[in-house]
């Protein structure tokens, strides 16, 4: 911070007419003298402080209280976390989230890479393919979820109708605990493959063609070139998409909420057997439907700790790969 911006220090030959303080070094300007700049960027920080920073710490405070949102809070210490450890639904929701995350992230990233390689090598209609593959990502999640719910409906859905035509009996897509997760993961894959494909495509275009040319001259086929050149050079981009997908995947909420949240009379979200109950959905159910804000806050903070553990493991793995 000590360095003064270059424009402010004048070259010696342009001697200022009036020198206010006869000192060798220009006086250090205090933080306050930059108030205009700080004022100009303040809207973001104010909004951030009110809508992001404060809620984060308030929820930490809430995790040690019992509060229904209206009456007085009571301090309960670590009681909410004691409940949490013994709550089978919480652990089930964590399991659901992780399963859905794996089921969606792996095909998303793999499919995106394949699609990006295909779109990269295609010669005509490049723009069309890019837009067509990206459209799912900008479609409203709610609309897509309603569509998926109709298509995979157990008794009257399109998928079961088609399976029926080829002689396969109706499959309980929206009631079987594993198929529920598959449908949610499929929805997320459908939404995010195009997004990751665009990122990979940008990465592919940044690889200098000379490298590929050299490989071709050395006699490498397209598969060898893909694994020998493309993949290693895409490594930082792949890492980026893994991180982004982890964040998105662990925060899955809207998809199961819309798919299995339509039953107003049933306070339990997440579909039959709560097999589609992700942790964030459980937090929403406890905090905003059962008005148990303290327990809701405990859920998200415990989940935050779990994510930290995951991140540390992830980071360790990446670091080890680097040293080799």
């Amino acid at each position, binding site marked *: 911070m000590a360095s003064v911006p270059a424009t402010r220090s004048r070259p010696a030959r342009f001697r200022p007419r009036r020198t206010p303080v006869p000192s060798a070094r220009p006086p250090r300007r205090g933080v306050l003298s930059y108030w205009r700049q700080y004022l100009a960027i303040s809207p973001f920080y104010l909004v951030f402080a009110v809508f992001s920073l404060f809620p984060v710490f308030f929820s930490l405070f809430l995790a040690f209280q019992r509060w229904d949102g209206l009456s007085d809070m009571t301090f309960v210490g670590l009681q909410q976390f004691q*409940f949490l450890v013994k709550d089978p639904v919480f652990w089930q929701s964590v399991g659901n989230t992780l399963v859905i995350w794996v089921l969606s992230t792996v095909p998303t990233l793999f499919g995106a890479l394949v699609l990006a390689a295909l779109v990269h090598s295609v010669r005509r209609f490049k723009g069309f393919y890019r837009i067509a593959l990206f459209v799912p990502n900008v479609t409203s999640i709610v609309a897509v979820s309603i569509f998926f719910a109709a298509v995979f409906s157990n008794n009257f859905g399109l998928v079961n109708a088609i399976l029926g035509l080829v002689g396969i009996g109706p499959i309980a897509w929206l009631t079987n605990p594993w198929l529920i997760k598959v449908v949610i993961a499929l929805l997320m894959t459908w939404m995010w493959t195009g997004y990751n494909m665009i990122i990979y495509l940008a990465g592919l275009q940044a690889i200098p063609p000379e490298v590929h040319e050299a490989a071709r001259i050395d006699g490498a086929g397209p598969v060898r070139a893909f694994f020998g050149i493309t993949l290693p050079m895409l490594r930082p981009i792949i890492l980026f998409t893994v991180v982004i997908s982890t964040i998105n995947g662990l925060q899955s909420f809207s998809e199961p909420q819309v798919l299995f949240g339509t039953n107003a009379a049933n*306070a339990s979200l997440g579909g039959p057997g709560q097999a589609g109950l992700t942790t964030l959905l459980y937090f929403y159910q406890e905090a905003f439907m059962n008005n148990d804000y303290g327990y809701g806050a405990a859920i998200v903070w415990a989940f935050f700790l779990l994510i930290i553990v995951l991140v540390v493991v992830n980071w360790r793995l990446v670091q080890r790969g680097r040293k080799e």
Partner: protein
Amino acid sequence: MELSRRRFLQASALTAAAAGFTAACGSSGSTSAHGKDLTLWYWGGGLSDKVVGDAKTHFAADITLTASSIGGDFKQKLVTTLAAGGSSVPDITGIKGEDMASFIPSASKFLDLNELGFKDIASQYLAWKTKRAQTPDGKQLGFPIDIGPTGMYYRVDLFEQAGLPTDPAQVAAQVKTWDDFWAAGAQLHRAVPKSFPVRNLPELFSIVINQGTKRFVDENNHFIGDQDHIRNAWNTAVKSQTSGLNGKVDDNSWNAAIATGTLGVELGAAWHALDIEQAAPDLKGKWRVAPMPGGPANDGGSFLALPRQCRNPEQAFKIISWILDPENDARGFTDAALFPAAPAAYKLPAMTTGDPYFGGQKTIDVFGPAAEAIPISYEAPADAAVMAPYRTELGNIENNGKSPDAAWNDAVSQAKQIAQRQGVS
């Protein structure tokens, strides 16, 4: 764009002034008791829009009433606004029946309607309904809008095929208890194999619970969800599964199930008639309704309440008692399928005309007596949350073949934990 210092200062000064002005306006909502501008919050279909419109003109001389139809999660928005306080709190607000119990502990956030004159007209409304919006010490938080007396809807043509009686009076005579219901349901399913008398287990469980006088938590705040009355309701629900009469129809496929005859019988509240009609307009004249087996229950129905910040309690109370007097309450039935909570309305022409969708049947003959016979039960603030695991576990029996005994044990242990979390002993 070059930003000169002068322009920048001007812009900042204007922004600051505007912010200050807004803030000043925001905090000027003092709680003087003679405000002229009142706001009313309800949800789409929560009140008859026509009656609300008429109320605006009726009270235009004294009050400007601004009614807002609030979408999304109504309860959540109301709780947040009440907690935040200030002038954005509505002067009159709707509260859904299923949420009422959870507002009882926050009675201090609302005005006691008895003090404003509700106790003089309370006898016009059904006692069991009024009691649900009352604190243990007798403060009246909610003014009843509508109720949801239940009946048994059935398909005349399918009943005929099965050799069952089709006339509502005869059906009522034959299907009185749940055992009668199983017998008739089995007869229907045998004759028309694609047709089932039960939608799904969780729904049936709720209906049987609503028929009873005790729920999951008693007045002394003790957990009673492991007792016989709950176990009996549970067994009734499970029986539909073990006897093969469960249609396993969920919300997503319900419309199709009604239209295609998968459900030949549908247990539901009076307002449910509209759902059936919308799901299967082609079946006009083929549905009838008879009393519920095992006695009437209530499903749904809402209240109007006055938050403590109400700017003019006396006028606000006049407005709600006008909107909900028996005559206007009956109009709510015509406009929005809101079944009135005032029995006097049941004799008005709006209620007593035959319903063409039900082959001209006067459905009030079923729902009117049902409404007056609904038992008084105590619903604790934590009730909805404590009930949830039972329904989830019934879903597990239905969908994953979980053994009913294991499901019962899991449901009770989870319900106990939720009850403890919510402060129930």
